[in-house]
């Protein structure tokens, strides 16, 4: 076991315990041993003075793509998990749309083992809903869960078959895991490459209407109501989806939702100039949609923030807009974007932001994370909430560089990240 550790004098924010005060944090044997004032450091302990910094439960990302197996030139489990801790994430849920997809227990075991071997963020596999993510035959969901999958999803592909969505929402109830849904009606989105609206018209790019998301979210909420299964809507981007989720929640449907930092921060104007790093699904929307998802997050209709970290190699993005793949990376910019967009503007205070980036997502996927309660795993992020920095992708630990935030000023940056009591990232002394 690693040495005991004391983080001294930081602003400890732990929404799970309603804490926001200047405290010392003692870590022993990989767990939170004590939180208190002027704690004595045990013999041999590593003591870090963190005055002026925030000490919070490590961030939890329900939505990352680590590309292994199959596209290791874009990201590996190791590089992704390392980038995650550089962004303050100590637990991540890895989507199954790899090549081959994570649709059997051996693949789930591989992901877990690689994550553990890397030793950075905890990597929790999400298993596929359907064999080969083809949307036809349901995977062995029970076996996947037993092997360590914390949820199932066909993310990257929508579940086009409503009958399959019904069966998986019913069947997962036996294993108490949520179904993560990439809700998209292909009949309305097919061939589209950006948000449908005045910008797509001016650029001559084929549009994806809000309705492509709204229709699918409505269908999924109705099936969740029918079945009583736990539905989690991924990357909400429209006002219509927000209203449907709000109404479903009001009826008592077991539905939760996430929004990405880029959908909180950027509109489809970011695509102008045919910027492929802003090509993503769902697409960056209008200003009205951005306002709607921000309000929904503040209100709690959207439960949490997840990055949809989607690495792509530069040569795949360095091409005609129509031909470039969808997706952008997010784990190393999420905190800085969210503080800029939500805290600086006064929409959320820091404790509530941490709630949405750590406690709530941990609850949704039932992960042993999102708290600094005594006895819990010592997954901790230490960050400077006020430092302003310029996003320079060449500094990222991710293998990919595809971010639309390059060159922008972000606010708040991770100083240190601790996983199971071990310091796995310290800025200025990257391992």
């Amino acid at each position, binding site marked *: 076991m690693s040495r005991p550790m004391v983080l001294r004098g930081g602003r400890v924010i732990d929404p799970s315990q309603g804490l926001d005060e200047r405290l010392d944090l003692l870590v022993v044997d990989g767990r939170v041993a004590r939180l208190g004032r002027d704690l004595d450091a045990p013999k041999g302990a590593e003591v870090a003075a963190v005055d002026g910094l925030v000490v919070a439960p490590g961030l939890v990302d329900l939505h990352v793509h680590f590309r292994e197996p199959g596209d290791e030139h874009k990201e590996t489990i190791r590089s992704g998990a390392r980038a995650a801790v550089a962004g303050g994430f100590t637990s991540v849920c890895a989507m199954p749309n790899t090549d081959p997809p994570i649709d059997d227990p051996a693949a789930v075991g591989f992901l877990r083992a690689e994550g553990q071997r890397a030793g950075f963020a905890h990597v929790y596999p999400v298993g596929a809903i359907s064999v080969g993510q083809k949307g036809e035959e349901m995977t062995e969901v029970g076996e996947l869960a037993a092997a360590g999958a914390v949820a199932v999803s066909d993310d990257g592909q929508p579940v086009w078959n409503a009958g399959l969505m019904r069966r998986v929402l019913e069947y997962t109830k036996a294993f108490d895991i949520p179904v993560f849904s990439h809700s998209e009606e292909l009949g309305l989105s097919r061939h589209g490459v950006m948000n*449908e609206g005045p910008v797509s*018209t*001016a650029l001559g790019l084929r549009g994806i209407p809000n309705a492509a998301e709204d229709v699918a979210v409505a269908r999924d909420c109705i099936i969740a109501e029918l079945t009583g299964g736990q539905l989690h809507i991924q990357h909400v981007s429209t006002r219509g989806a927000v209203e449907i989720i709000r109404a479903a929640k009001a009826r008592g449907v077991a539905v939760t939702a996430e929004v990405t930092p880029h959908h909180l921060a950027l509109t489809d104007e970011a695509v102008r100039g*045919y910027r492929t790093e802003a090509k993503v699904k769902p697409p960056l929307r209008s200003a009205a949609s951005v306002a709607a998802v921000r309000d929904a997050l503040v209100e709690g209709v959207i439960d949490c923030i997840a990055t949809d970290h989607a690495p792509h190699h530069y040569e795949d993005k360095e091409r*005609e*807009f129509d031909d470039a793949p969808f997706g952008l990376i997010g784990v190393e910019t999420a905190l800085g974007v969210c503080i800029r967009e939500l805290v600086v503007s006064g929409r959320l205070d820091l404790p509530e932001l941490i709630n949405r980036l750590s406690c709530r997502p941990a609850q949704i996927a039932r992960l042993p994370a999102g708290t600094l309660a005594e006895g819990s795993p010592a997954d901790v992020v230490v960050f400077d909430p006020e430092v302003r920095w310029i996003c320079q992708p060449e500094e990222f630990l991710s293998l990919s560089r595809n971010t639309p935030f390059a060159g922008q000023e972000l606010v708040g940056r991770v100083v240190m990240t601790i996983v199971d009591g071990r310091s796995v990232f310290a800025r200025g002394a990257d391992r």
Partner: protein
Amino acid sequence: MTARVTFGKDLTGLEGLSAEQIRTILDVAEPFKEISERPIKKVPALRGKTIVNLFYEPSTRTRVSFEFAEKRLSADTVNISGVGSSVQKGETLVDTARNLEAMRIDMVVVRHGSSGAAQFLADRIPSNVINGGDGQHEHPTQGLLDMLTIRDHLGGIKGHRVCIVGDILHSRVARSNIWGLLKLGAEVAVCGPPTLVPPGIEELGVQVFKRVEEAIEWAEVLNVLRLQLERMEAGYIPSLREYNRFFGISVARLERAPRDILILHPGPMNRGVEIDSHVADGPHSVILQQVTNGVAVRMAVLYLLAGGSPERAEAAKRESRE
């Protein structure tokens, strides 16, 4: 002619041009029209310049028009088409561009099926890039030659009412017409089946007619777009026959108009689909004049981007005679 109008490195679209720049191009095209009427159709304005015509999509009219424009200005030209080149072997656009650049060229005219391809090239190579049509985005020289033709017949653009009819959604010609005509002060409308009129088009500053009869009632100029067969296959319209019945431009429809209407078409025409032969060949059709003007407009664009000054265009025309 307005002095001190300058141009950027590239012409990727009319959206980014000022009214002054557009007017200058049209004005410079005027003296160049005459060169094509001479027995010896050549002036030395671009002598020693190397121009590549990079055509990823099939094209006859635009490619030949550019090539004539280049040759009549004495440039050295090379044509590359998608078929039978490295393009077909899977070379990426950026690699093709870099290789051409490595051969030290001066200008590229690019036609490509993806919107933004011209901008993509322009951002990556130091040569002048001229958009010869990119996906559904813009076809700026077509927009310019349409405006030149309208100006020839109506004496100007400002205040005149132009309606673009047909598949607006997929049309780069429509977008270049809209930007250019609006900048020069025309009133612009579009008309087509609602499935082929893009959402948000009103925000560009145009009005929308759902029925072609209303458009004919309103317009002084109709720019009739080609309807591609693929649109029917993709389910945007039920059949070509039905399209012709409800949106085709026929003599019978035009006879009900309160005035003579100038008829433009960017070609190639589907006779009997979007336009009836009697209209295409009729007294108010200026379709072939558009083609003639295309060469002059392209000469003007090449000349101006190569650094020629508007004031010297007349002189450039005379040079060969001296």
